[in-house]
């Protein structure tokens, strides 16, 4: 089960945070700061999997943004979640057309909505980009009208 999904930039500023188990603000800030420091200290030759504070962490860097997933320590397929991160980025890219950090900052509710279509209750529910973006296209159409 996924416990949290984060998008953090190299300066340690969180651009998107979705937690599937409740943590206080202080705990979140501490966790995010520690995670980004750990991810920044790792080189390209090192694997994208590590353990931190009882979570299994899978991360991947896209330009200036780190996509971080925290899971339970019990058996999980890390490779599948690494591919999920790539799927998420491709979905965001498809919607925003050459997505960048600023797109996520200025359209934070849409980024959250896309993520919610993909992950519910810590489980991946949808991976098809068309299916994921269908509701948000309906919303955009309704807004334009």
């Amino acid at each position: 089960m996924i416990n949290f999904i984060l998008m953090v930039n190299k300066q340690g500023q969180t651009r998107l945070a979705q937690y599937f188990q409740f943590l206080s603000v202080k705990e979140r800030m501490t966790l995010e700061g520690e995670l980004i420091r750990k991810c920044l200290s790792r080189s390209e030759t090192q694997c994208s999997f590590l353990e931190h504070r009882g979570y299994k962490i899978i991360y991947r860097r896209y330009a200036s943004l780190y996509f971080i997933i925290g899971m339970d320590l019990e058996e999980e397929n890390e490779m599948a979640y690494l591919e999920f991160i790539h799927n998420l980025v491709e979905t965001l890219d498809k919607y925003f057309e050459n997505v960048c950090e600023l797109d996520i900052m200025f359209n934070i509710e849409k980024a959250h909505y896309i993520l919610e279509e993909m992950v519910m209750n810590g489980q991946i529910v949808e991976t098809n980009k068309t299916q994921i973006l269908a509701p948000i296209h309906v919303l955009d159409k309704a807004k334009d009208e």
Partner: protein
Amino acid sequence: MFHLSQMDQIFLKSLADVVRTSRTTSQYDKLTFTTQTIADIKNELQSRQESVRYQALLKLFFLAMEGNNIRWAEFQIINLMGSGDFQLKLGAQLAAHLVIDNQSQGLIMVTNVFIKEFKSSHIECSSTLSCLGTIANKDLSDSLLSHVLKLTTNTKPLIRKKAIAVLSKIFTINPLNIPGNLEMVIQQLQKETNISVLACGISLFCSIMKVAPKLYPLFLSIVYDQISKQKSNWLLIKLVRISNKLISLEPRFQGKLIEHYTRLLNQTNSKSLQYELIYSIMRHFKNHSQLYESAGDILKQFLNHQDPNLRCLGLECLTHISTSVGLMEFQEQILESFKKSDYFSKLQILQLFKDFTNQNNFQTVIEFFLKYSDMESNDKIIESLIFIITKDKFINVDDPEKLLLVYIPIIAQKIDSIDNAIRFKELLFELLTRVPGLKVYSDQLCNQILQTYATQSDSLQGPTLNIVKRHTQLKYSLNHREIIFKSLIMIVGESVKLLKLEALTNIIKFLEQLNILNCYESSLSDIDSLLFKIYIQIIKSDPENQIIPQMEQLIKNIYTKLHNISIVKISFFYESLIQIKSRDQLQQLYNLFEEDLPPINLEAQKLIKPPEGLDINKSFQIDISEIEKIKNTNSDYIEQKQLIQQQQQIEQNQGEQQDQNSEIQIKVENEEELKPLNNKIDQNANKIFIINRDEELPPGINQDDINKFKEEE
């Protein structure tokens, strides 16, 4: 609520404005900016205009991401969930997880809002279901269970998918809701064709297995059905995962999966699906050689892959092979992978070898890790090697001699931490306790290790440099060496009786040359004790006094070098030497006291005048009867004394005989032990060192357990 005027609306800050201002604001003004923004948001949330409230919600989102506490907005957000405007409603539902937790009082208000939303359009219903999945607690889930169950039969796959996903949370929170409801869901899933809905169904089964694993027969058939016909990689990964759990509950299920696993393994190119299959096969399909071999081939590819992620996953998979025989197949690939791996992966590999090294690969493993240790992982490597060596009372060691003379010196050189130095010390003591014959090599070991330390510490010669260096971090780097130094000195001291004269003299000469003695201040008593023992042994071994004077000079030189030792201690040392040296003379003195005193020689009497008035020929006892009485008692006393002396003589003779016999036995034993060891190590020599693993079993471990382990190995 208030209505913003047109003028106010012009100056209303949007999310974009807040973001830009936040990025340009300095750190010192951040608090002021945040406080001002929160005050604005509080006002705007009370506005009647939905666009204003929407902008406030977006700004709230942004502040939450920045690390600000927005739980004060719980009531406002719950209020917005019931808004007529979908955009506003959606924003509030997305923000719900930031302000609402299981203990929130506001959840009570949400029930009716959700029930109303379930009857709306499919987009609104799906977003409501997503929100419910995030914030549901026990009360809310019990209230809404029937509504969610109804939604699982909705015509839209989007709604069905989300309803099933919410059900997995509801069943996890309150497992009492499962009976009766699960069967209904399974019936619907059996007719389901949409992959997303099926994937959510499989996730539901995974959640149920955590809280109520005994219900597995209900969905066993549906899992098997899907695994035989599905082609979507995401769904197949979930199916293989749940099959893994089902096999441990129902072993007969394993047989049915062989065909499908073989097909999937051969057809798929997806690395994540391959990993899932390999993981399952390595755990459960060891008896099926063909499938196991195919999985093993793919695992070897993972271990050799350029991608560090795949190498890491390969190692992760290997931890689930529970036998060392299984691990041996992949040993070559694992060791190759070690050279390219990062620190985290190296730790994984070390853990593997800690668990699965045996006598067959012991030497290979030790030599490899000693060769390829680097600065970052050196500490962990040494720790692991010491663990492997000492595991189960040296069960992996078949050649203790080689271990002591070849591997242990190299390990000692690589130690750079106090923890490892302590472990090394314990290793040495235990090894020499269990193989007493190895003590004859203690001088060689001491020389080998300390010579390296002396070479590496050339810059620490002389007392002045020590005083300066004492206050730097170098003192810390010496401490682990001092622990090893002390342990070596102690071992040599214990082994002194087994060493030949030549070896003893070499030790003294070596210590005399060693420049690092001054650095080890806390070891002075150990050095003192060692010198004492060696000197006594040399005295016993050198009756002709050929080398003793030379040794005494060397010992004196050593004490001169040890600047901190007091003169009192040196003088005591020499007093002890003198006492031990004249032991034979003491025996002669004892015999002297036992004999009757002979009369004073007449010649001597010439020199010594008797006192004036004393007649030495005259009896000083006047009463003759008294003289007779004393004479008689004296004669009885003398007879008794003679009898006692005879008895003591007999006992002494017996004791001497026994001592002689035991001495002869020890001599013979030592000679037999030392005979083959006088030569250099012969690789083809028969093993004469047997590790004693029978004594002092740790509490809680039986000899039977050890025997069982040996049989399994």
